[in-house]
Each structure stands twice: as structure tokens, then as C-alpha cells.
């Protein structure tokens, strides 16, 4: 398992284009928001938590199609499926690698981009906490979407259509934590819901992803 994780991480780092792309996308999106809605500080600080969440979500989505597609193309996915390691663990490891290479950098970049959007000071903590709790769910749900569409020639757009509705609950609670935190409200309920969604997705969705992947590899 660790070997597989290291392999995926090394591939993501060295193959180029994968690792920094999500971050760059997040940066560009955040720059474009003030350019499109105007630079008023009050407006920006009120929408900053939502924009950061949306940007992180889209950056996650963008990097999903290379999650399984590359291994599918060169046949290493078939090898992994016949390996003694259960496919459920393979899928979990893939999701973990995706989170380390995409989710974690996004979490670390979010406060920096928060400065650009004039995020209120108490908001920084909650944006980071909510993203830290929410991005694992985004990776795991995304892995399910990638497994669904892995056999398709141009599955990227279809995958976005399938994955985005599944992202909605995570987005709603995550952005709610960040928004409430930024204006100093109590965050406990949405925070617990967000953590619940993440925990349940991590625990249950790999089984669905592995089942779907088995159908696709048939």
C-alpha cells in the first residue's frame, strides 16, 4: 500500500502538469473574482469564504480525470486489480494520493488567497479548518466519479456533470462553516455535519468506487 502511495505521489510530482496545475487554477480563479465583481473591499470580504470554497472545489474537480485515466490507459490499473491488494484499498490509496497532491496544497494556499479577497481575520482559521475537513471528502467522492467514467473516451465533461451534484452537500456545509466563522458566528453544527460527511464518505465510498471500477474492468 505504501509502495503504491509513493508511486502515485512520485508520478504526480515528476510527470509534470499534475501537481501545480490545481494550485495555479485556484490562484487564477481567485484573481478573476475581483476582476469580475469589482474591487469593493466590503463585497469581497463577504463573498471571500464562498469563493475560496468554490475555487478549491473546482481545482479538485479539474485534477480528477488524471486520477485513474492514466493508469487505465497504460494498463497498470488491470495489474492493480489482479494484485493481492484489494481494489478497495487501491481506490482509497488513489484518493489519498489525490488529496495529498491536490487537496493539501489547496488548504495551504487558501489563507494566502484569502488576503487577496480581503477575508476577515477570524475567517482565516475557519477557512483552513473547513477545507482541511472537507477536501478529503472531495477527493473520495471524486474518485467515485473518476471510476464511473474511466472507460470513456472523453469522460471529463461527463464526470464534472456527475461529480458536481455529489459535491453539493460538502460545499454547502463547508462554505457555511467558513462564512459563519468569518463573521464570528457559532460554527459547531455545520462543522459537525461537514466532518460527518467526510468521515462517512471516506468509510463507505471506496466500496462503491471499487465495485464500479470492477464493472469497468470487466
Amino acid at each position, binding site marked *: 500500500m505504501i509502495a503504491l502511495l509513493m508511486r502515485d505521489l512520485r508520478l504526480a510530482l515528476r510527470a509534470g502538469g499534475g501537481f501545480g496545475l490545481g494550485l495555479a487554477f485556484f490562484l487564477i480563479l481567485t484573481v478573476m473574482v475581483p476582476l469580475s465583481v469589482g474591487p469593493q473591499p466590503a463585497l469581497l470580504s463577504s463573498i471571500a469564504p464562498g469563493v475560496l470554497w468554490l475555487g478549491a472545489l473546482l481545482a479538485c474537480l479539474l485534477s480528477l480525470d488524471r486520477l485513474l485515466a492514466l493508469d487505465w490507459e497504460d494498463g497498470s490499473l488491470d495489474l492493480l486489480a489482479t494484485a493481492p491488494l484489494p481494489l478497495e484499498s487501491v481506490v482509497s490509496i488513489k484518493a489519498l494520493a489525490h488529496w495529498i497532491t491536490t487537496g493539501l496544497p489547496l488548504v495551504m494556499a487558501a489563507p494566502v488567497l484569502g488576503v487577496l479577497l480581503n477575508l476577515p481575520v477570524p475567517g482565516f482559521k475557519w477557512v483552513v479548518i473547513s477545507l482541511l475537513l472537507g477536501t478529503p471528502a472531495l477527493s473520495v467522492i471524486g474518485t467515485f466519479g473518476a471510476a464511473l*467514467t474511466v*472507460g470513456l473516451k472523453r469522460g471529463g465533461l*461527463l464526470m464534472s456533470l*456527475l461529480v458536481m*451534484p455529489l459535491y*453539493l452537500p460538502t460545499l*454547502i456545509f463547508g462554505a457555511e462553516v467558513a462564512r459563519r466563522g468569518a463573521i464570528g458566528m457559532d460554527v459547531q453544527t455545520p462543522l459537525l455535519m461537514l466532518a460527518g460527511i467526510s468521515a462517512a464518505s471516506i468509510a463507505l465510498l471506496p466500496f*462503491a468506487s471499487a465495485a*464500479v471500477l470492477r464493472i*469497468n474492468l470487466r
Partner: protein
Amino acid sequence: MSIWEYANPKKFITSTERVLPALWAASAVCIGVGLIWGFFFTGDEARQGATVKIIYLHVPTAMLAINAWVMMLVTSLVWLVRRHHVSALASRAAAPVGMVMTLIALVTGAIWGQPMWGSWWAWDPRLTSFLILFLFYLGYIALWEAIEDPDTAADLTSFLCLVGSVFALLSRYAVNFWNQGLHQGASIFRAEAVIGTDTEEKVSNIFFYPLMLCIIGFVLLFVALVFYRTGTEIRARRIKALIARERVEA
């Protein structure tokens, strides 16, 4: 005599075709009588005026929009467990019908909301979750269309339906939490009213009877459409098999 007999495509087509004319006729009569009764022979509501009459389209389609998804969930499970092709094709046949029902409910709701709430759209939990349901239908249909192999498509869409149902329910509660609503709560079928703890009359009897007729009519229409479309899907697959066989022989 068990329900699984109808998993035989031949049996399914012959028996549904026997009841289909009756279903079409019954749904046409119910909807026709219900709508005419509702539109012309009930008074205007005291505060809403004539706009209340859109209820006869809005409520039945909204109920079917949700129940069509539930039906797809059941048929998907049947496919995954018992591998009956008719079941998978029935969920495929029901999806566009459910999507259209969702769309009609959204549009009639907007037309009703404009004079009542003063806006076509509000980010109310019920409205939002219906829009989300619409997105789920879109993704489900798109996945069916995208995959060539019919069995793979049936398997993958069934899994999407199962996982999607969980997330659709989650979204329903998430949006409830996210924003307070303008939309009134459940008013027609309420558990509290049945067990007698809530005696308040939410929908007047004058509107209730034609509305019931419309609901029955729309349910019959839905059943007829699903039977009809499932038969079409079965025949389409049979044609594909015949063409493939001819190509092999030639």
C-alpha cells in the same frame, strides 16, 4: 404467480400492452376531468385569486418527480440483485419522464411564485433541492447515453442511482439548513393529519377533490409512459441483437 414473471421481456410486453390502452384512457379521463373541474368549477381562493389553480399541475408533477427517482432506485436495486434486464430498462425509461416532471414542477412553481412571492425564483430549500434533483436526473441520463455496452451502462447507472440517492437526501437536509424557506410545508398528505394530532385544514375540500383526481391521473400517466417506454427500450435492444446476428451471418 409471482411478480418476477414479468421479468421475462416477452411476458412484460404482452401484458403491459394489454393494459396500456386502459391506462392511457383512465389517465386522460382523470386529468381531463380534474383539470376542467379545477379550472372552471371551483371558485377562486380568497387571497390568491385564480393563480391557485396552477396547483393542479404543480403538485402532481412535483410528487411524481420525487417518486420517479424512488422508482428508479428500486428498479436499480432489483437489477443489481436479480439481474433482470427489464428492471434496468425500466429505470432508464423512467429517468427522462422524471426529469420532465421536475422541470414542469419548477416552471409551474416559478409561474405561481411570480404573483405570490413577487419573484420567479427564490433560493428556498424546496426550490433549491428540486433544482439539485434536476441535476441528478441530467447526470444519470447522460451516463446512460455515454456508455456503449448495455450491461456496463446498466451497472454503472445503478450505482450512480444508489450513491446519488444518498447525496440527494443529504443535499435536501443541507439546503434546509442553509436557508429558510418561503415555500409552504407539506399540506396534502401529512402523517399528523392521518393520526389526528393535526386537525388544521391546509387545503380546502373544494380544491382537494379535483386535485386528488389530477394526482391519480398523473400517476396513471407516469405508469403508462414508463410501460410504453420500457417496451420501446426492449424492442430497441432486440433490433440491435438482430442486426448484430445478421452481420455475423453475412
